[in-house]
């Protein structure tokens, strides 16, 4: 089989990437998690009689979502094909495996395929007598106006959201309480991303979108969804200011004295060097507004293959969210001591 593969991906079979990365992910958990059914991964040693947290989505964005299962994180994940939501039977097998009699919270990003497949999965679970609640992540500021949040996509803010929901899943006793906290984390989180180069589809080697060499896609989604427009290439400090302007312009009130989680994410190939330079540019702008960073994350966690670009996510903390944030967590994708 010949495939033009300009990304020079180190793979075996372009059509088997989702299955093979999944098998590798199970190995990366060193026996702390196991494969369930077709393509679900579930932690061993789950807290008994507790509500469960299930995440999931398409593959190809590693380490999310399936790399966010762990202690103090999600209990399990339903994994789809590359860039495609997991089908309902995979959602069901994961749901059955994480359920401990107290029901299951589905937490995933707002994409049509994910919503349809998780909804069908929830219907199948209901037929098996399992209670399911759903909280949909929609932190992408540039994907729709604040008056139309139902159309906003879920992007990098899913990391602090899953961390907080995971801490809640480790402590609360009811599904309603878990869903309430997860929804609060969603409501308090906003992300703005930018892109400088597309990723590619492993099976075809073709780029997921086109972008000229001298521009930045401002507000672009993680699959190259169009954002608010193209801007000329600029310096890190200028870009940090533009991204923060969009975040401050949204409907999450950020006032002097507020404490936030500040997450600088690479979409794949953008280097840690650039992330750190951007962080350096963002910090004085946040300080000037009196906003206190409770914790900074600088990492590659929400990616789209070798796509280049970054996102800033802000999660505003209140006393409850801060307490949950401060609990330790451990997963392949994100660990906090």
């Amino acid at each position, binding site marked *: 089989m010949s495939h033009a593969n300009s990304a020079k991906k180190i793979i075996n079979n372009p059509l088997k990437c989702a299955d093979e990365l999944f098998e590798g992910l199970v190995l990366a958990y060193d026996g702390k998690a196991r494969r369930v059914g077709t393509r679900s991964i579930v932690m061993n040693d789950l807290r008994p009689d507790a509500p469960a947290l299930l995440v999931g989505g398409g593959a190809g964005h590693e380490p999310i979502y399936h790399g966010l299962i762990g202690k103090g994180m999600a209990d399990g994940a339903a994994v789809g094909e590359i*860039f495609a939501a997991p*089908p309902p039977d995979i959602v069901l097998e994961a749901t059955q495996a994480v359920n401990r009699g107290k029901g299951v919270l589905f937490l995933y990003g707002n994409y*049509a*395929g994910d919503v*349809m497949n998780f*909804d069908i999965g929830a219907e199948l679970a209901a037929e098996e007598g399992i209670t399911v609640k759903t909280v949909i992540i929609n932190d992408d500021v540039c994907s729709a106006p604040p008056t139309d949040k139902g159309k906003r996509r879920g992007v990098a803010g899913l990391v602090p959201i899953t961390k907080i929901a995971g801490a809640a899943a480790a402590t609360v006793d009811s599904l309603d309480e878990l869903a309430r906290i997860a929804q609060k984390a969603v409501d308090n989180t906003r992300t703005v991303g930018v892109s400088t180069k597309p990723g590619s*589809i492993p*099976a*075809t080697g073709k780029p997921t979108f086109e972008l000229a060499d001298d521009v930045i896609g401002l507000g672009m989604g993680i699959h190259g969804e*169009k954002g608010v427009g193209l801007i000329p290439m600029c310096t890190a400090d200028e870009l940090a200011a533009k991204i923060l302007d969009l975040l401050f312009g949204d409907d999450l009130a950020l006032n002097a004295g507020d404490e936030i989680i500040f997450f600088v994410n690479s979409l794949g190939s953008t280097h840690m060097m650039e992330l750190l330079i951007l962080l350096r540019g963002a910090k004085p702008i946040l300080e000037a507004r009196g906003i206190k960073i409770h914790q900074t994350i600088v990492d590659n966690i929400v990616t789209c293959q070798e796509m280049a670009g970054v996102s800033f996510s802000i999660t505003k903390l209140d006393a409850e969210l801060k307490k949950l944030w401060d609990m330790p967590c451990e997963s392949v994708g994100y660990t906090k001591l």
Partner: protein
Amino acid sequence: MSKASLSKDEVKAMLILACERIIAAEPMLSEADRNLGDGDHGLGMQRGMTAAKEKLEAAEVESIEKAFSTVGMAMMSSMGGASGAIFGTFFRNGGKALAGKDSFDAAALAAFLKAGVDGVKQRGGAAVGDKTCVDAMEPAANKAAEVAESSLSEAIQAVTDATVAGKDASKAMIAKFGRAKTLGEACIGFPDAGACSVVVIIEAFRDFIAA
């Protein structure tokens, strides 16, 4: 010599032809999606129809209903994504409307398409004009209802024409779903990839019936 109506084994053979046509159309469907989406629609459809063909060929079909629902279940399970849920629902719901039928005629075609597109609209929330597969499915279902008293070969030709016209009409639309919705007017001029898949499937039905 066209067929007046199809037995369950002929329906199975027709569905296998549709699977083969989609599998072969992968490059065209992926290219169509690259203009509007992330360019993997053809791969997903190919994966789904490969699984459906294997399931159909693996065993005798018990009924016409079961032949269609086998395709739907295989697509839904193997594809995932929006396309898996949508095309899986189309074949499963459409198949349910054929429960108890032992021959597939123009009335059965109409019942299949109506139930199929109704299921898709309910699951995904799309309507005609949103630049989705519904833009091909709904005109197909409407035309099939009009010609439900005709011969199967006349009906499927009329339905094919309506499906193609629906797909072509999607070129002028601004997308309201999926990644294409973020493109605004930039998506004008390209047909919806899902609608292209519907055309491939319906044309396969027509060619099988006409053969």
